Every structure is written in C-alpha cells, then in structure tokens.
C-alpha cells in the first residue's frame, strides 16, 4: 500500500515532464495532474506495475472549467490488490479537446468516456465506439453539461423549453 505522494514520486521518476503537479490544497483527496496526451501510457503503467497494480477505474468524469478555458477529465483509480487509491486529472483546451482513451487499460472506461463525450464533447482518441450514449444520436445542439450550452427551441418538431 502506498499513499498518493509516493505514487506521485514513482510517476515523476518514470514520466518526468509529463507529470505536472501534485495538488493538495483542497478538501478532496490529493490530485495528480498529468499531461493530457500521455494519459494512456501513464494509466497502462499504473495498471501493470507490480507495486501499483491499479486494476479498477472507479470513475471517470468530465468537468468544464470555463474560467480557465479548459475541459478536464478526472480518473479515480483504485487497486483492490494493494488497497490504495489515487485521483488523476488532465486538462485540455475547449477548442480542440482531445484525450487518448484508456479503454485499452480498463474496459469499463468505454461507457464513461462515451458519457464524457456526450456531455462535454471531449474526443477520446482511439476509443472503439465513440458515440453519444444518453442524448439522442441526432442531437445537434451541442454538449449539455458545458457551461455555455444553450438548449435549442425545438427538437424534431417538439418544443423544448417550458
């Protein structure tokens, strides 16, 4: 079992500049911020390394940080073997929100990433099946959980606002 700081150090030694920050100044558990485009390699390392063995992706969620003009993805990881947990975060631009998919590492990421795509429009590169999961397939009004989203007047002839 390792705490988040030790895991951060292991990652820092292995990936160096791709691991950006260890953030502890908030009431949540510490956050390890990494480079967006390296997330697949980092996750694959976290899941396969003997002393880490993060075999479970507990949650994957998108967040719109509109004040910083960024879209972020949080990864809650747990190792049921070593009983330790960490929280990873990546940020990407709102104009071109592209993140490598981690479906190769954890199959369970498939629908989580589809949801983040559906709600925030984050493109997960190399995702096997990146379609909308909750909204209708022909929804053209954008991504509903973005802070600057506006609902359309009509969808398929049905009035949407109250």
């Amino acid at each position, binding site marked *: 079992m390792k705490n988040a700081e030790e895991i951060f150090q292991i990652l820092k030694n292995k990936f160096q500049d791709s691991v950006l920050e260890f953030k502890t100044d908030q009431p949540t558990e510490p956050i390890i911020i990494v480079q967006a485009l390296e997330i697949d390699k980092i996750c694959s390392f976290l899941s396969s390394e003997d002393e880490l063995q993060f075999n479970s992706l507990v949650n994957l969620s998108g967040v719109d940080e509109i004040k910083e003009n960024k879209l972020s993805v949080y990864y809650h990881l747990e190792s049921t073997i070593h009983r330790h947990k960490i929280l990873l975060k990546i940020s990407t631009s709102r104009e071109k929100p592209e993140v490598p998919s981690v479906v190769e590492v954890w199959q369970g990421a498939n629908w989580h990433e589809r949801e983040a795509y559906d709600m925030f429009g984050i493109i997960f590169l190399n995702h096997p099946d990146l379609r909308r999961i*909750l909204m209708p397939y022909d929804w053209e009004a954008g991504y*509903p959980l973005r802070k600057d989203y506006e609902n359309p007047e009509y969808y*398929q002839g*049905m*009035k*949407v*606002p109250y």
Partner: protein
Amino acid sequence: MGLLDKEFADTNIVISTTDDVLNWARLSSLWQVSFGLACCAIEMMATSASHYDFDRFGVIPRPSPRQADVIIISGTVTLKMATRIKRLYEQMPDPKYVISMGSCSNCGGPYWEHGYHVLKGVDRVIPVDVYVPGCPPRPEALLEGLLKLQEKIRNESMVRKSK
C-alpha cells in the same frame, strides 16, 4: 330474490341503449400498454399487484400497443423517448386513451427548467385524457385517474360517433 335475478327469471331480456352496453363493455376491460418509464412505473406496478389489484377494474397489462386500449405514461418523458411514445400511441387501435401519470409527464415536473433532455409534458406529442398529479402519485391516485377515465368513456357515444 334480488331485482336483477327476478328480471332474468321472468323474461331474459334487459332493455338498454346500444351506447350504454358498448360503453360498459369498453370501460370494464381497459387493457393498458405494458410499458413504464421511471419511478411512477413502480407505483403503476404496485397498482397492478395484488394489494391494489388493477385487474378488478379490468385493467391488465398487454405487451403490445396493437391490442391495447389505454397507455399510461408513467414517468419522465425524455426527448429521446418522446418520439418512441408517439410511435407507440400511433400503433394503438382506436378508440384509445392516454393517462398521464405524475408531474414529469404532466408538465416536466422537477425538470421543468434545467432538464435539457426532458419533454415538458407528454401532451406536447400525444393527446391526454386524464392527468394524475403526484410525484409519484400513490396507487390510490392512479385508481382515481382510471375511474375518471371510465366516467369519460361512460359518457361517450360510439354509435353517434360512427355516423
């Protein structure tokens, strides 16, 4: 001997209007489309189960819209579901009835303002006969809604309609 027994014993004839007989038959066996949407559907299932026994009013779930008389919209109608509900309704044969059950299907309910995915009332896609308020309505409320629908059917006229 009761009045009814005596009348049958004497002549075997009951005099009534065609409308009354047809309406009595129709309102006494309203088959509902076996179909539920959200938490209201749980109350609807409870209404069908033994304690509240929807079947005593002749309501049984029929898992095909083509052989059903009434559709109970039991829950939140999302925009994605609304197109399917419309199709289900169109597949039902006339005469057909709609009970809108609960706040969501009446007017959008708690999703009225920020529900980007919710249709604000099922009456925007299909005509509703009875609105049952509640979130979700208790089985008693749904039973009352059904009684209101029966009352409506009792006062209709199939014969005059077909002219």
